Structures are given as structure tokens and as C-alpha cells.
């Protein structure tokens, strides 16, 4: 758990360097509007990376979160725009229900991942690869392959449905007025910050968090110490799935529509953010704030290159290079300590 100062803050320093570079060379980067936009764009990936960090710290991996965005999104949108729900519980109730269904579906699939991994002793890579495929298929099945979204004009419940979508948009695309901020502060960014703070608290201050690190550090020693290893692991995957579900809600709200193909390959971005933020795929190492910083680093990079008018292909190459740099640096700082 203890990490060296350099290793710990290197990513933060890298982020600041990147921001400084962007501020100097990319016109329009250093405006409050642009910075809040970055936070908004980063929020989905940061929330996924936060959940991913729990799993990675236990020594696992969760490939299913991208597909879960698709599945949880269409289930939430389906719930929200179903005439039955709207008639029964009204717009407010349907919105709440949609949030619960989306998050719950994500957490449930996550828990299933965890159960198969912890109790079934199947490698998490395989389990989540399978659920990734299943969830994507299920999302397409539910929707018939077409997005659920704005109702057609002839829809008898048109007013209610669009009102419900607007309500969810208040969460996914809403802005809270802040003096000095022309367009206000994006709600998803606020949710992201709150979640990361909560995640950091759980990981560093609670028994559960200590167990997560213990399992990743030495699963056998943890088990022999009476740590309920299987339950803790199941929890980590459920948290990751739940984060994916919540991220799906934000995405649906933002777009006012849920596509079955939403979130394609998002799991790789989440892993990248967690790893850039210092999580080790060997387990036992990683922080919630690190996940946020990792996601921000990717976000700032993309934004800066966008502003400079660099092709998106180059952005991908740059992102890959950053991942390699982060991991190389990590290995390099650790090697300095390793002696008999």
C-alpha cells in the first residue's frame, strides 16, 4: 500500500505538465468552459475506471463494463419510456426507477461475474469476456438492434416520454449554475467527483477496502487470516458493474437515447485509466484518485489534441504511448527499491 512519493505523484505531475503544454499551445484550452467540458467528457470513463480499480486491486480484471453500458442503458431507457411505467408511477417515479434498473442491472451482472470468479474459481478474464459478449447480445436482443430514444411523433404518450427523457437528461446532461461559469457545472462531473471521493474513502478507510488490498497483495495470507475472500471479490465486481450501470444512466441522459452498441470498447479505456493512475494488474496496488487522474490525463490529451486539430488517429497513438510511459515509469521506480 505504501508507495514512494515519486511513484505516487508522478501521474499528477504528468497531468499538470500536459495541462501546461495544452494551455501554452492549444488555443481555448485554458478556459473555464473548456475545462468543465473535459470533466464532463471524462466522467463516464472515470466512473468505469473507479469500479475497475476495485477489481484490479483484488488482482482481477473486468472486461464486461463496456457491454454493461449498452445493456444497462437500454434497460434503463426501456423502463423510462415504457408506457406502463409512466402511467403507473409518473415521470419522476419512472426516472428514479430507470436509475435503479440501470445501476441494479450493472451491479447484478457484476455480482454474477464476481460469483463465477470467486466461488466458481474461473479466471476473471474468461468470465468477464463471456459476460461481455452475453451482455452485448442481450442489449441487442432487447432493442432489436435499434436505439431506444425519442418517441415518434404519433406516439400517444409522446409528451410523457419526452418529459421522462428530459428528466434523465437533467442527470446526464444537466448543469448546475455556478457564478462565473457561463454554462454551469456539469452534473455528471459532480457525480464522478462524489463517487471517486466515496471510493477513496472505502478503499483507504474501511475494513472492506483493507480486505481488497490484502487479497490483491497476498490472497492466501488473507484467506488464512480469516478474510472472507470470496465475498470481498464478489463485492468488487458488483461495484464495478454498478459503476458501469451508473455510467450508462449518465450516457443515456446525456444523449436522450440508448443504443445497444453504446460503450463499445469502453472497458479498455477504463483499464487504461486505472493503469495510468497507478493500478497494477498484478493486484494489491491502485487508488481511487489515481483512476480519476488517469481518466483526466486521457481526457486532457484528447481535448488538447482536438483543439490543436490533430487527427483522431494520432490521438489513439498518443494514448497508447502514454499507457506505455506510465507503466514503464512504474516498473522503473520500483526497480530502484528492489534489493535482497
Amino acid at each position: 500500500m505504501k508507495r514512494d512519493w515519486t511513484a505516487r505523484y508522478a501521474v499528477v505531475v504528468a497531468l499538470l505538465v500536459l495541462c501546461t503544454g495544452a494551455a501554452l499551445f492549444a488555443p481555448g484550452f485554458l478556459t473555464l468552459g473548456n475545462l468543465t467540458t473535459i470533466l464532463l467528457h471524462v466522467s463516464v470513463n472515470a466512473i468505469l475506471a473507479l469500479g475497475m480499480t476495485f477489481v484490479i486491486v483484488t488482482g482481477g480484471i473486468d472486461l464486461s463494463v463496456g457491454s454493461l453500458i449498452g445493456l444497462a442503458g437500454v434497460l434503463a431507457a426501456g423502463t423510462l419510456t415504457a408506457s406502463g411505467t409512466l402511467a403507473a408511477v409518473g415521470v419522476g417515479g419512472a426516472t428514479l426507477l430507470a436509475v435503479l434498473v440501470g445501476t441494479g442491472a450493472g451491479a447484478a451482472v457484476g455480482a454474477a461475474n464476481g460469483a463465477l470468479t470467486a466461488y466458481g474459481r474461473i479466471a476473471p478474464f474468461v468470465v468477464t469476456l463471456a459476460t461481455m459478449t452475453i451482455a452485448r447480445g442481450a442489449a441487442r436482443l432487447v432493442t432489436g438492434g435499434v436505439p431506444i430514444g425519442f418517441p415518434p411523433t404519433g406516439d400517444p404518450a409522446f409528451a410523457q416520454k419526452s418529459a421522462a427523457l428530459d428528466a434523465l437528461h437533467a442527470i446526464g446532461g444537466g448543469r448546475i449554475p455556478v457564478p462565473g461559469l457561463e454554462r454551469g457545472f456539469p452534473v455528471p462531473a459532480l457525480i464522478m467527483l462524489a463517487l471517486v471521493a466515496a471510493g477513496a474513502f472505502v478503499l483507504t478507510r474501511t475494513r472492506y477496502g483493507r480486505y481488497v488490498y490484502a487479497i490483491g497483495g497476498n490472497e492466501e495470507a488473507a484467506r488464512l487470516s480469516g478474510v472472507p475472500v470470496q465475498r470481498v471479490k464478489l463485492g468488487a465486481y458488483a461495484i464495478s458493474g454498478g459503476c458501469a450501470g451508473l455510467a450508462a444512466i449518465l450516457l443515456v441522459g446525456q444523449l436522450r437515447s440508448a443504443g445497444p452498441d453504446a460503450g463499445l470498447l469502453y472497458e479498455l479505456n477504463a483499464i487504461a485509466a486505472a493503469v495510468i493512475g497507478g493500478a497494477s494488474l498484478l493486484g494489491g496496488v491502485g487508488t481511487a484518485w489515481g483512476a480519476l487522474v488517469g481518466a483526466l490525463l486521457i481526457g486532457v490529451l484528447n481535448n488538447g489534441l482536438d483543439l490543436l486539430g490533430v487527427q483522431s488517429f494520432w490521438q489513439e497513438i498518443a494514448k497508447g504511448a502514454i499507457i506505455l510511459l506510465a507503466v514503464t515509469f512504474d516498473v522503473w521506480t520500483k526497480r530502484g527499491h528492489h534489493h535482497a
Partner: protein
Amino acid sequence: MQTDRKRGAETQAPDADYGVPPGPGVHCRAVSLLTLSAVTKRYPGVTALNAVDLTVEAGAVHAVVGENGAGKSTLLKIVAGAERPDAGEIRWEGAPVTLASPREALRRGITVIYQELALVPALGADANIFLGMERARGGVLAADAMREAAAQALAELGLVIDPTRPVAQLSVAQRQLVELARALVRDARLVALDEPTATLTAHEVAHLAAQIARLTAKGIAVIFVSHRLDEVRRLASRITVLRDGRRVWTGRTSEVDEAALIRHMVGRDVAYRRHPAGRAPDPTPLFDVHGLTRAPAFHDVSFSLRRGEIVGVAGLVGAGRTEIARALAGIEPWTTGNVTLAGEPYRPRSPRDAIARGLAYLPEDRQRDGLVLRFTVRENITLPVLRRFAARGRIRRAAETVAARAAATAVDLRPSPPDVERPAVDLSGGNQQKVVMAKWLLTDARIVMFDEPTRGVDVGAKVELHRLIRALADEGKAVLLISSELPELLALADRVLVVRAGRIVGELAGEAFTPEAVMALAVEAG
């Protein structure tokens, strides 16, 4: 004894003897095989080796002894080419060399066999023996030839097994012989063994000693690193003592007795002394094990533990001692048998269960099973009892720190007062074991089962651990002590159970409790 083996570089002829009998006046007669002069190795914050000299002669066993952290491992790494010295000179047959990589050391004929054996578990003995030097024709492995050569090398070491058997299925002693066979096949000229007997039973040690003698008879030089001074004195003709990275003594084995060696090692007088009980054991048992069975690991195991008593468990490695303890600790199941704890039926479904019932098991491999090395001392100590410091899931750090400090102080963690925020990975073997003890002390267990508690621990820490173990019994805990070191059992145990092939074949106490009696029971029907 001294023979110089000179070979053509590519010669592979089996059993060819290219030995050149040293004639009178041949200058290389006086040249040592390996000479280290004033070798220094620094790591950040610590000088692991400080101007150390070492001379190894062909055909002789040179022991290197010292407490943990004395620099033995670093010395071996330099010999193996895994580390390069910061200063000093290495000579091989009189000529200065740089051992820049393990590959280069191997090429010169240096094989280092580490405590954590460097074998690929899933591969057969033959594949392991030829790993990195496979015989092949046009890229296709000459599997038959290698299998035969491997079988031959193993047989030469007294191990007759199917050479294709995965190494994972072999015992530790057998794996060690596989490593030795690898050295033979490579035509090694110097073999260094790091704590080779740490995990072996007396019987296996005797076999290994015979194989080492065989190596030296072939003119191979042996560096033997060990904690067990009786073995060192039996096997080695010369001994070098390291302390805190310095060479403090080198000489002939005949010139030094064990007490003097220990004095050199620790710089003070210590010996294994008998720790007498501070109290009489309870008349009635606290823990009653009856007919415990899980074929094929153990059969019909019955014994009882009383508060205030230390019961030793002797036996060869692989006899089933650890398996019995692990079953009782809830780590693995048992099939039949009745166990009662304080009169209540006891059948733990998990280690968590066993801990809740007041049973602590300190595993033999503390790095693998006992500690989260990345965790601090505090985090390790409180892991089993975290619930105590958690109010609705949130850890109360202040209370946790107080408890961890108290437990660390109780086991005399060094330096004193103990720094509980140090990562466990930075501690010496003895201190790590103390952290494991502190951790289990905090669980307030009624029954404490130790599995090789002082393995790989230096002499000074060993004596302290002995004192702590006796103190536990005196506090009224029932103690089970599994140990392969008979002097340890003699120093601590009130009675000893001898396990052979998964059965308890005898119980010894009082006058009858002698090393000879234990060995007789452990090895053959006695």
C-alpha cells in the same frame, strides 16, 4: 583431492576424463578455482557486502554462514552473475573475470541453486534439467537423448524416477536433486547451494550430504550456505562467517566449534537452551483430536492438547504434519474424525471459522501464506481482527495503531520501539516471523499451531522466538509445534508426536525423548 578438470569447450563425450594430473611444479596447482577479493556491494541505504574475501578450492566444500542480512544471499548473487559488485575483484582460476550475467557464470561452470528452486513446475525433470541448453537437431528437440541423459544424471544422484514426470509432483528434496542433476549435465565446476537443507528432513539431508560428497569427489567445488551449524560442520572443510556484510572469520572446520561459530555470527554468546515450563499443564485436554483422516494425506490421527503445554510434532517432510495442521485450521477439509474444543464439537469450514473458535495456525511459508508483504507491519498485524477496530466498516486508525504497536512490542519486534508503519517486505526473516506471531497473538487464540516457526531465521532471533513460544504456553495457551529441527523440539516441547506416512507412530516424553528415538520412529518402524 585437488584435481583440475580441463575440457575441450564443445566436448560432450560422456564420462570422459580430461583430468590432467598436476605434475610437480605445475603452477596452476596452487591456483584457487574462485577468488573474491574485497568485493563490495551497495544498495540504496545499505552496504550488503563490505570488502569481502572468499576463496573456493576445487573439490572442496566451503560453507558460508551468518545471520539473515549478513550478506550471504548477495554474495551468492555475485557468484551467480545476477549482481555485479561495486568494487573488488573476482578471479576464476587465477584470471580476473567479470561475471556480467547468470548466463556468463553458467558458461564458466558456475551453478547456483537458490532456496526457491528455479524449476518450471509444469515441465518434466528432463525438460528442466536441459532448460536453456536443450539438445536439438535443426531446431527439433532430441527428446529421447535428453530423457536418457536426465535419467542417468538423476540416477547418479540416487533418484530413480520417471524423468518426464512434472516437477510439480516431486518433493522438495527430489526437486533439489533435479537442480543438482542440472549442474551435473552442465558439467558445472562450482555449485553453490543456498540453504539447501532448510526444508529437508534429517533423512533427506543425509542423502543430500552424500551427493555433495560425490560432487567434490569429481573435483567440483561447492559453496554451502546454511543456518544449520551441525550440517555445516559435517559437510564443509572450510567455513567463512559473514556478519553485517563483513567477513569476520574464515578457517578450517576442525579449528572451530559450534559455540565459537555462533559467537562469530552474532557477536555474542547464544545457544539453544531448554525453555522450561513456567506452569504445569491443565489436567484435562482443551483440544481433542480423534481418528482424524483424509486419505491419502493422513490416517486415524489422534492426540490432545492441554493448556500450558507445548506438543511437538516431528517427522519427515511430506509425512503429513502440515496437512494435519492445515485441516485443523480449516484450510482443507477432513473426511472422518471427531474433534472437540473445550468439550464442544469442532469442525471449521474455513480459516475464518477456525479463528473465530480460537485457533491460530502460523503457516510454514510466511512469505507465501503468512504476510501481505506490501502491507505495513500494522496492516499485517490487525488483518485477522480488523473487525475490532471497525465501527460500521470504518477503521479507527488510532485504536488500530495502538493495538498493532502493543502486539509488536510484545513480540519484541526490532528495532525497539517498533516502527509499525514499515512495509513487511523490508523486514528480516526473524522480524517477519515476529510480525506473524504478533498478528496471531492479537486474535487471543486458545490454541496456537506453529509450522516450522524458525525456518530461515537467524540464530539470535530463533532463541527469542523460542522464548515467545514458551511464554504463550505459560500464559495458558495450548501450543502445537511442528518442526524439522530436532534441537528446537528438544528445547521447547513437553512431549513429541512422531508422524510417519500420515500416521502418528509414536509419542515421546521425558527420558524417552531423544533425537535418536525420534529419528528411529520417523524413518522406520521403531
